[in-house]
Each structure stands twice: as C-alpha cells, then as structure tokens.
C-alpha cells in the first residue's frame, strides 16, 4: 500500500489524526522556542552543514583515521557492506560470547537492517530499552517516529499493553505510573543482560570515540553493566574532530525535542577494563548515495526528527503510512534510494511547503531533493506509464497557446453545461474534498484581446 492509501486510512479517523497532528506540532513549537532562544542558531546550522559536507568529501580519509584511533584505544572495528553482513557480524559477536540476552538502545540503523528479527530467530532475546521502542516492540510493530517511537499511541493503549505484557493493573494509564512499571521491568533486563548494543549519534575521527545521546540513560545502563558493548553506525556518522562535537550536540536536542541537551551525552573511547567494545561500520547503500551529487547531502542527517515534526503531511498521516524505516521528509529521500520501486510514492507525499528545509539543523535542502526524486522516479517508470504519458500530453498542449486556449474553452463550456452532480463525479479526487470553482465564460487572454486588442 503506498502512502496515499495509508494516509487516507489515517485521516479517516479525523479526531485521532488531529490528536496526532497536535502532538507533533507541540514538539515543533518546543523546537522553535529553543532555536529562537539562541542568537547563533543560523550560524550553528551553517557550520554544521559545512562540516558535514566537508566530512563527506573526505569520508574515506576520516573513516580510516577513525578506525586507527579506535583500534589504538582497544576497540575492535568491523566493516559491513550491507544489512545482511551487519546482522551476521553482530550475531557472530554475540554467539562467540555466548550471549542470549541482549539489551539495545535506539539505533535506526539496526531497524533498517532488521536486526531484532534476525537475532530473535537465532535464539537471542533482544530487549529494546528506550521506553518508546520497548512499547512498539511489545506491540510487534515498527516505530512511527525516529525520536518518539510511540507517539502514535494513546496512554490507554499503552496501559492495555502493559497490563497484557507486563502484568500492570488493568486500566492504569497515568504516564508516570506506566513509566514506573517500565522502569522496574527494564531494570531486571539491564541487570540480566550479557551484552549491550547501542547506536552511534556521532563518531569522532580524530579520537576514535563514539557519542550516544539519550534522555533515559538506557544506553548507559545497557553498557555499564555487561562486559560486551557493540555499537553500530552508518559510515556517515563521522565528524572530523572533538571541537566539532559541540556544534552538533547543541543543534541535536534543540531540534529534536526543544531541550538544550539530552540528559546524557555519553562518550565511549575503547572498552571498559576487562570488557570489549566492538564498532560495526555499515555501508548498506550509503556509499552509493554519496556518489549521487543531487542526493548526497541527505547523508548529513543527524536523525533529529525535526523535519517530521514540522511536516504537515507527516503529522496528519503518521509514520507508519510511509511503510519505511525512516518516515517523513528525510525518509522520503533516503528510502527511494534504497528501494525506488517500493517507495516511489514517498517523495509525492509532500506539498512542497519547504518547512522541513528551514528546520533541518544541518540545512539539507530537503524540499529540493524531494522534487528531484519525483522526476527521477517518473523517468524510471516507477509511477506508471499512464501517468507519464498523460503528463507528456498535457505538456504538449500547454506549450501551445492556441491548443491551450481551445482546450480551456472546451473544458469551461463543458463545465458550465454539465449538471453539478456529474461535474463533481468527473472532478475525481479534487471534488472529493473541495467544491469546484465558479467556471467563468472566458479566459483572461480572450477578454484582454476583446478589450485591449492584441
């Protein structure tokens, strides 16, 4: 099901769609207050964009520098071409250490690779420890937002879930109480875990270290207790030097949640004494995207979710309607790169309002890339020949003022002659939501010629 059908289902429950819309707009407003509160906000965005562009231009150099620095600190560095190799690598490490109980903090990369299902099928219990992620994990559904995985759920639904899965009281729906239930449940999992897996927000080439940002402290608990820490990162997570970190850390939380900083900004350099740190560096299509001059800047994304919060379409259709690991504007650029046939509807799930580009902390030209994707996907035939031919024909007509005048006059005359009911039906998707405009007798150019001569 493409986005339009899924979105239509979502909006059919208008009250719920409005509730979801208001929830995401609330986050957008918090971002606004945080961003407007920093006079140097635009300078930070400009610098972040420049640093990311620079890093991508020298990515191989920085990757090698990172690997050497990380290895020098005692970390093990692994390289994975694709999702399959990533999953095999992670599983191999866990199996070698006899791990059957793994705790995981948020990693969109592992979502992308389908790691949880892969490990689950091989007898490893994977517990997502971010509260939102645990909720959707228990519901057996994907996250609907990359920062707020369960934002599509109401407290009552979470209460019912916890009652079913965690034995909490029936009807309990107070967020504080539910969080306490999750705290106790996950505390047990942390204490029993034999390994912790995290994502990576930023990898510092100069020092060989990685940075993980959370509000809950789940990445810290997950890595403080067990002896094995596996960190998975896409190749694009690099930044050159330590001094660049504050640029991104100052932008990330403000863009994502409106906070000045997350509760925990954790830095890992090498393993803990007696432990092991394994870094898995993943390509999975990123090097191909880097070679694409139009779309390479999408790799600058720091996964803040601001574009989703500001997108009027995302807010009213929900993350699941995108049918992709990463939804919203950035997802609609990244996912067609991965699977153009499957995700062809995504760049069209957009009114081109460009609000996303104005909130993106690293100044990705999201709205231009969405537009560019449209042409590429149509040309490649992913939107059907019929549409392409119809557009081509319309283009020919509009190129000729005479043909346009004739077609327009005909359409207007027909519209004025036909009964309203017929017109509404003929109007298709336009008239499903809107009344037709009053159809005038003549075009402007016909009137101009009549009144002003040629």
């Amino acid at each position, binding site marked *: 099901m493409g986005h339009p059908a899924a979105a239509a289902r979502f909006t059919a429950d208008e009250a719920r769609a409005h509730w979801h819309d208001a929830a995401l707009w609330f986050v957008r407003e918090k971002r606004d207050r945080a961003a407007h509160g920093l006079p140097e906000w635009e300078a930070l965005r400009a610098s972040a964009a420049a640093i990311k562009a620079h890093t991508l*231009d020298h990515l191989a150099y920085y990757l090698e520098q990172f690997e050497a620095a990380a290895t020098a600190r005692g970390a093990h560095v692994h390289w994975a071409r694709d999702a399959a190799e990533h999953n095999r690598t992670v599983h191999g490490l866990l199996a070698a250490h006899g791990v059957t109980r793994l705790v995981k903090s948020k990693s969109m990369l592992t979502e992308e690779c389908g790691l949880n299902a892969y490990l689950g099928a091989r007898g490893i219990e994977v517990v997502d420890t971010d509260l939102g992620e645990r909720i959707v994990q228990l519901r057996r559904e994907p996250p609907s937002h990359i920062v707020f995985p*369960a934002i599509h759920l109401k407290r009552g639904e979470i209460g019912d879930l916890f009652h079913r899965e965690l034995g909490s009281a029936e009807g309990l729906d107070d967020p504080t109480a539910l969080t306490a239930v999750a705290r106790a449940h996950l505390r047990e999992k942390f204490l029993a875990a034999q390994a912790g897996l995290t994502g990576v927000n930023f990898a510092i080439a100069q020092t060989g270290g990685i940075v993980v940002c959370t509000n809950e402290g789940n990445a810290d608990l997950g890595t403080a207790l067990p002896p094995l820490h596996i960190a998975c990162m896409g190749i694009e997570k690099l930044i050159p030097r330590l001094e660049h970190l504050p640029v991104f850390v100052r932008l990330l939380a403000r863009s994502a949640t409106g906070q000045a900083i997350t509760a925990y900004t954790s830095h890992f350099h090498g393993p803990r004494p007696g432990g092991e740190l394994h870094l898995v560096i993943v390509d999975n299509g990123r090097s191909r995207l880097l070679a694409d001059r139009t779309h390479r800047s999408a790799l600058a994304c720091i996964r803040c979710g601001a574009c989703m919060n500001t997108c009027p379409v995302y807010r009213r259709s929900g993350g699941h309607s995108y049918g992709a690991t990463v939804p919203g504007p950035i997802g609609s650029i990244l996912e067609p790169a991965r699977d153009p046939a499957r995700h062809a509807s995504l760049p069209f799930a957009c009114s081109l309002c460009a609000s996303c580009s104005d909130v993106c902390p690293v100044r990705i030209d999201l709205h231009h890339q969405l537009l560019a994707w449209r042409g590429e996907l149509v040309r490649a035939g992913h939107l059907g020949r019929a549409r392409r031919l119809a557009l081509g024909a319309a283009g020919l007509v509009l190129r000729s003022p005479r043909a346009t005048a004739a077609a327009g006059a005909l359409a207007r005359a027909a519209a004025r002659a036909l009964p309203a009911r017929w017109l509404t039906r003929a109007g298709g998707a336009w008239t499903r939501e809107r009344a037709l405009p009053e159809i005038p007798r003549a075009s402007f150019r016909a009137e101009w010629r009549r009144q002003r001569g040629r």
Partner: protein
Amino acid sequence: MAASRDEILGALAATRAAPDPIPGFAGEPVHFEDPVAAFREALAAAGGSLATFTGRADLDHALASAEPGAVVLAGGPAVAESGAVWWVPRSEAERSAAFLAERVILVVAREQLVDHLHAAYQQIDPAVAHYGCFMAGPSKTADIEQALVIGAHGPRALDVFLREDPK
C-alpha cells in the same frame, strides 16, 4: 571482512584525499552576564536543581545529610547554557552506581562553570577515559503522550552542588 572494508573504502575512493582546511564554528556563542543564574535555570528546565555553597564546611555538611542511597560524583566543567556537567567515573562501580541510584549529586567548583559547550569541550579530553558523560538533570522520558516523566531508567533526582571558595 577485510574484503568488506576494502569494498567500502573502494566505493569511497573519491573521498580519500586528506582534508584541506577543516571548517569550524564560525559564529559567536552565547554569553551570560550571570552564568550561575543561567545554569540554575537550564538545570531546572532539565529537571535538576542547583545548590550553591561557599567554602568546604557547608558543602560537606550538605553531603553528609544526603540520604544513604544518593551517589556523590565529582563533576566539571559545568555548562551554563544547558545545565550539563561533565563527569568521568572514578571506577566501574561508580559508573553503574550513578545510573542505578535514585538520586545523584554532582559536585562542581564554581570556576569550572563555562557559558557554552564549545568552551567545555576545550577544557576536557574525553579520549583519556573509556567513558565520560555530560549529565543534564535526572533521567527522563516523554515517550507516553509527550508527558514528561522524571526518572525513566536512571536516577529520579539530580542535584548539582556548586562550590565557590570564599575570597
């Protein structure tokens, strides 16, 4: 796996060149006339609270009166714009205790308070330790209907004790 490394770096061959000038932050970071007030406000927004002490005696008394489960950590620098404090655990036991505790107290010297994160990073070298963390307030989540709940998995309370030496 070495093959994967070669394949990935090979696909990125066009980006092998050593970097020419590396761009930095070209702006003017925020400056506070009253950094303690700014820090107090930012820490409160993050769900934590600030207590200031002049001299060791009051500070030691406050620490001694803290409940038994509270974990006391040595932190610094502290960042006024966000209420964050840099902390490197002195041991692995302290590292886990800091997250399993119900309450954390971070002790910071006044002269270690800086305006913004750029200044803080200039003063630290995270790479010398296998783990270090900027902590801003207690553990929290807003994953259930965006309702802010303090104390997700980690501590439910975090206080910063700022110690100023008498002049």
